[in-house]
């Protein structure tokens, strides 16, 4: 018992672990909340694209020796705006616009970073995160961005929900639907920026999609889904950091594997929407039929 407690509590005495844990909790909460919309609106590919397109912004910030949040945020908003604008043009399908943009931007990032001698170490930390290397400024920046996202989600809740549920009705009510879409894209971009230090560009889509997808299996209420999704994201982050510290495995990958495993468990055991529950109710229906 005491051994187990030591295993759990000893790492907490290190400031870099405390910062890392705070950072993953912020990431988990923000990703979980915004991820609810990503899942309900089927925007997983879009989220992946924005995270890749942010990469050159991170590299440029690194080259210019400025805080990476500035570069990432600038490119995130730029990408969100470009995708939003392109998809209003009927000649280019949204799917195509996203595909062209994200590969092109990612390539730009790769080319830029290759100008640095011996760049592979930096590349890895950008692409896969470096949660135990976060600074105090990183945590503070994540906190500010996370609060902005949360504030926007609360203030524009009814508009975001209506556009996600029934676009036509939203248009009929005179809501500026494209503006709501653009705002959501920018919120997603901001959330991705919060997650970069923890899981990196490539894996961030998992934090946007997986906790929310698991949460959907446990509830039919939007508010509950958001709360559960945030909880799953934050908890997955914390567990991932502990496991990776103790086993010396890559932190970003471990965090994502934890939430992925939880999604798998949820898929199996969730009430009503889980596979087991559905098998049971199907069996009940069959039994009912034979009795009738």
């Amino acid at each position, binding site marked *: 018992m005491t051994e187990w407690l030591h295993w759990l509590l000893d790492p907490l005495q290190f400031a870099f672990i405390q910062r890392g844990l705070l950072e993953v909790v912020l990431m988990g909460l923000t990703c979980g909340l915004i991820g609810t919309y990503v899942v309900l609106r089927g925007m997983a590919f879009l989220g992946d694209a924005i995270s890749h397109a942010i990469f050159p912004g991170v590299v440029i910030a690194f080259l210019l020796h400025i805080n990476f949040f500035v570069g990432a945020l600038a490119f995130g908003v730029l990408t969100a705006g470009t995708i939003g604008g392109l998809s209003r043009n009927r000649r280019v399908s949204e799917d195509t616009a996203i595909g062209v943009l994200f590969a092109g931007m990612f390539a730009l990032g790769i080319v830029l970073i290759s100008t640095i001698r011996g760049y592979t170490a930096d590349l890895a930390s950008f692409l896969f995160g470096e949660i135990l290397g976060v600074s105090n400024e990183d945590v503070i920046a994540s906190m500010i961005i996370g609060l902005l996202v949360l504030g926007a989600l609360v203030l524009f809740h009814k508009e975001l929900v209506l556009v996600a*549920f029934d676009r036509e009705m939203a248009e009929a009510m005179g809501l500026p639907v494209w503006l709501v879409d653009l705002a959501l894209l920018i919120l997603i971009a901001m959330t991705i920026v919060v997650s970069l230090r923890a899981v990196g560009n490539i894996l961030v889509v998992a934090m946007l999609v997986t906790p929310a997808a698991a949460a959907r299996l446990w509830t039919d209420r939007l508010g509950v889904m958001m709360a559960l999704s945030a909880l799953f994201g934050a908890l997955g982050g914390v567990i991932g950091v502990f496991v990776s510290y103790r086993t010396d495995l890559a932190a970003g990958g471990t965090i994502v594997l934890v939430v992925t495993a939880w999604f798998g468990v949820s898929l199996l055991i969730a009430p009503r929407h889980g596979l087991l529950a559905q098998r049971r109710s199907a069996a009940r229906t069959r039994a009912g039929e034979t009795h009738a």
Partner: protein
Amino acid sequence: MVTAHYTGERAGNLASSGPAVRLQGVTVGYDAAPVLNNADLEIGWGQLVGVIGPNGAGKSTLLKTILGTLRPRGGTVTIGGYPAHTAGARNAIGYVPQREVVNWDFPVTVRDVVLMGRTARLGLLRFPGAADRQATQAALERVGMADLAGRQISQLSGGQQQRVFLARALAQGGNLLLLDEPLNGVDVTTQETIGALLHAHTAGGGTVLLATHDLELAAEWCTQIVLVNHAIVACGPPQTVLQPDLLRAAYGGHVLVMPTGNADTAHLIPDDHGHPGGRPPPTSRRSEGVAP
């Protein structure tokens, strides 16, 4: 700015300053072939109006033009004297879209959906209050869905889903109700509930526009019929519009004219061309039993 229309101002409910709907020289659609051409139409208050016509003739287009989600290329549209696209026009309207357009797996309850009807009235940055909850409850009771208010919407039958949509339109609080094929695939109970509500609405001075394929029902329910085929072919009381020659002109050769004992109106059924492909046929008793 776009948001100017979405002000949430509480416009006066009884629009006495003009007819319910007035279209003057309205042309809607894309370049070469307009869906509606040079349409003139005037509908007063207290009318239950059936909008009929073959598939693709422009029934939905007409409704969406009045609703303000489609902008005409030429001509003017006013709702109760307010130009379409203004807050005054929008607050005068309640809308029931086709059931197929929303994501029924969305994790919201019946009550949540009806409360969405209040979105435009509330306006930006305002949360639903007691008055909105009362309007929601009243609307749920009128359509007989108060008992199921806590249900997730995917757990409803087609008829119940349609009644939720109608409740949402009532919660919008407008005097002009627009319904796009509300009777497709609904049960007899729902059909009777909807019929009673629409008649009560017009008795109270409101107007209803109802796009439908069911000519039999249009003849029975409506005080006016608008016959559409890329233009307004005819508009007037059922006995003058539901005439074999007019219908044959609109539907081509695809109408069976059935002689009946009822002297008021010819009883008519369009053949399969009159029903949307792939959708289940209406389960109403009226869809059968028309033959003498």
